[in-house]
C-alpha cells in the first residue's frame, strides 16, 4: 500500500516540475508553449543515453538539463517573432518532429522499442527503501526548482518578465530588452522540463517515443490552468489533481463495475478535456490564482 502511494507521489512530483516549468513560461512570461513534451522527451532520452553509456545517473541528469536547454534556443528565437497562437502551433509541430526523430533514428534512440534497463539510482538499497529514496530525490528537485523559480520571479528579472507578459510595448520603450528575457525564461523552463524527463526515465527505467505524445503537453496545461498559472502552489495542486484523474479512474471500477476498463481510458481523457474547458470558461485564474487582468 505504502509502496503504491510512494509511486503515485513520485509521479505527482514529476508532473509538478512540468507544471512549474509551464507556469514559468506562460504564467509569468506569456509564452504559449504547446510543445512542452518535447523538452520532457529530450531530457529523458538524453539522460538515458548518457547514463547507459557512462553508468552515471548524475551525468545523465546534467545531460538532460543541458540538452533540453539548448533545444529551447531555436524555439526561443521563434517565440520572439511569433504571435501567441502561431507560437502554439509551431511548438506543437516541434514536439511532433522531436517524437518522429526519436521514433525513426533507431541506431541512436532504439526507435519504437526505445531504451530499456536505464540505471536506477539507489538500486542497492533494496526495493522499498529505494523507492522512498527516489521520492526524496524528486521532492528535493522540486524544492530546488521552486527556490530557483521564486528567486527568478521575485527578482528584478522576474518583475521584468511579468511586465512583458502584461505590456510588451511599454517594456520595450523603457529600454529593457524583452527578447533576451523571453528566451531566458523559455530556456529555464525547458531545463526544468528536461530534469523532469530524466527523473521519469530513471524511475520507469525505460523510454519509448509513445510516452511523449502531444496529449502529455495538454495534461500539463490542464494542471497548470486548474492550479493557477502564476502560482507555485497551484502548480503542485494542479499536478496532484491531474494524477488523481489519471490514477484514480483505476479504482472507480470497483464502485461502478459495469464500466469496462477500456472505457476508463476515455473517461480519463474526457475529464482532462472537460476540466480544461470549464476552467478556461469560468475560472481562468485557476484554484489558487488571482484574477488576471485579461
Amino acid at each position: 500500500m505504502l509502496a503504491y502511494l510512494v509511486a503515485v507521489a513520485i509521479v505527482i512530483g514529476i508532473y509538478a516540475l512540468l507544471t512549474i516549468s509551464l507556469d514559468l513560461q506562460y504564467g509569468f512570461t506569456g509564452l504559449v508553449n504547446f510543445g512542452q513534451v518535447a523538452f520532457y522527451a529530450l531530457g529523458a532520452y538524453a539522460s538515458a543515453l548518457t547514463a547507459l553509456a557512462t553508468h552515471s545517473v548524475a551525468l545523465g541528469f546534467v545531460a538532460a538539463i543541458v540538452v533540453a536547454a539548448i533545444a529551447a534556443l531555436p524555439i526561443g528565437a521563434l517565440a520572439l517573432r511569433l504571435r501567441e497562437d502561431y507560437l502554439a502551433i509551431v511548438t506543437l509541430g516541434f514536439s511532433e518532429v522531436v517524437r518522429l526523430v526519436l521514433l525513426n533514428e533507431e541506431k541512436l534512440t532504439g526507435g519504437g522499442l526505445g531504451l530499456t534497463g536505464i540505471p536506477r539510482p539507489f538500486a542497492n538499497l533494496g526495493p522499498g527503501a529505494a523507492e522512498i529514496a527516489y521520492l526524496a530525490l524528486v521532492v528535493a528537485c522540486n524544492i530546488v526548482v521552486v527556490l530557483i523559480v521564486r528567486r527568478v520571479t521575485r527578482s528584478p528579472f522576474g518583475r521584468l518578465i511579468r511586465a512583458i507578459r502584461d505590456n510588451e510595448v511599454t517594456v520595450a520603450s523603457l529600454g529593457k530588452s524583452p527578447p533576451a528575457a523571453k528566451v531566458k525564461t523559455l530556456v529555464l523552463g525547458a531545463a526544468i522540463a528536461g530534469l523532469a524527463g530524466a527523473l521519469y526515465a530513471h524511475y520507469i527505467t525505460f523510454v519509448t517515443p509513445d510516452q511523449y505524445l502531444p496529449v502529455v503537453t495538454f495534461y500539463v496545461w490542464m494542471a497548470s490552468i486548474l492550479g493557477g498559472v502564476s502560482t507555485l502552489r497551484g502548480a503542485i495542486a494542479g499536478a496532484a489533481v491531474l494524477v488523481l484523474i489519471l490514477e484514480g479512474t483505476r479504482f472507480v471500477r470497483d464502485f461502478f463495475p459495469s464500466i469496462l476498463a477500456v472505457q476508463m481510458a476515455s473517461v480519463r481523457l474526457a475529464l482532462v478535456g472537460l476540466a480544461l474547458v470549464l476552467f478556461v470558461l469560468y475560472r481562468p485564474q485557476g484554484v489558487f490564482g488571482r484574477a488576471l487582468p485579461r
Partner: protein
Amino acid sequence: MFYLNLMVNGVVEGLIIGLAALALNLVFAVGRFPNAASGDFMTIGAYAGYSVQQLGSHSALVQGLAAVAASVAVSLASYALVFRHLVGRSMVAPLLASIGLGLFYRSIVSLLFGLDPLFFVMPPIHAYTVAGLRLQGTDLWLATLAAASVAIVLLLLHVTPIGREMRAVADNALLARASGIRSRRVMIALWSMVGAITGIAGLVVALRTTVNPELGWGLLLPAFAAAVLGGVGSPAGAILAGLLLGVMQELSTPWLGFSYKIALSFVVLTVVLLVRPQGLFGTAQVVR
C-alpha cells in the same frame, strides 16, 4: 511517371488537407483564433456517416448528409456553449478551450464506439490508367466535391448578404459591429459552414481509410500548415496551399521516407511564418 503518380497522390491528399485548412482559415479570419477542435469535428462527421451505413444505408448522399448534420451540430454547440463566452478574452483562451473540447469529443466518440478502428464497406475499384498515370474514380469524385465546396464557400462569402457580413467581421470586427452587423447571425453562419466542411472532409477521409477517434487530430498539423501557407483570409488560398503541401509531401518521400514527410508540414509552417507571414494569398496579418 513514378513522380507524376506521386504527384497525383499528393493532389488527392492535398485536397483533404485543403478542406481541413479551409475550415481552420474561416475560424481564424472571422472568429480570430485557431480552432484545434476542427479535427474532432471531422471525426464526429465520419462516425455519423459510419453509423448511417451501419443502420443500412449505403447511399453516399445520405451518409454525407448525416456527416454534415453531425458536424454542424457539434460545431454550433461548441460555439454556443464555449467559444461565444470567450469573446474579448485573449486568443489563448479559445485556443485552450478548443484543445479541451477536442479531447472531450474524442473521448465521447471512443466511449460510444470503442477505440478500435472501424471500416466502411468499400471494395476496391479499379483505377483508370491513362498513359501510365493512375487515376482513381473515387478521387475524381473527391476533387469535384472539394472544388464544389470551395465554390460554394466563395459564392456564399461574396454574393450573399451574410457572406458580406462575415467578410466585414473578418476585416474589422469593431467597425462591423458599429455598422450594425449582428455578430450572432454571422457566427451562426460561420460555425455552420465550418461544420459542413469538416463533416465532408471527415467522411471522405473515413471512406478512404478507417473511422477512428484520432482521424481528425492526425490531420491537424498539415491543416494548420496549409492554413498559414495559404494565408488567413483567403479560402481559395487554403485549398491551393493544401494541394501544394500534399504534393510536396508525397514528392519528398523518396528522400525523406514516409515517416519524416509529416515533418515537412512543420518546416513549411515555420518557414512561412518567418519569411512571409501573410502566406501566399492572405492579407497582411499581425503575426508578431
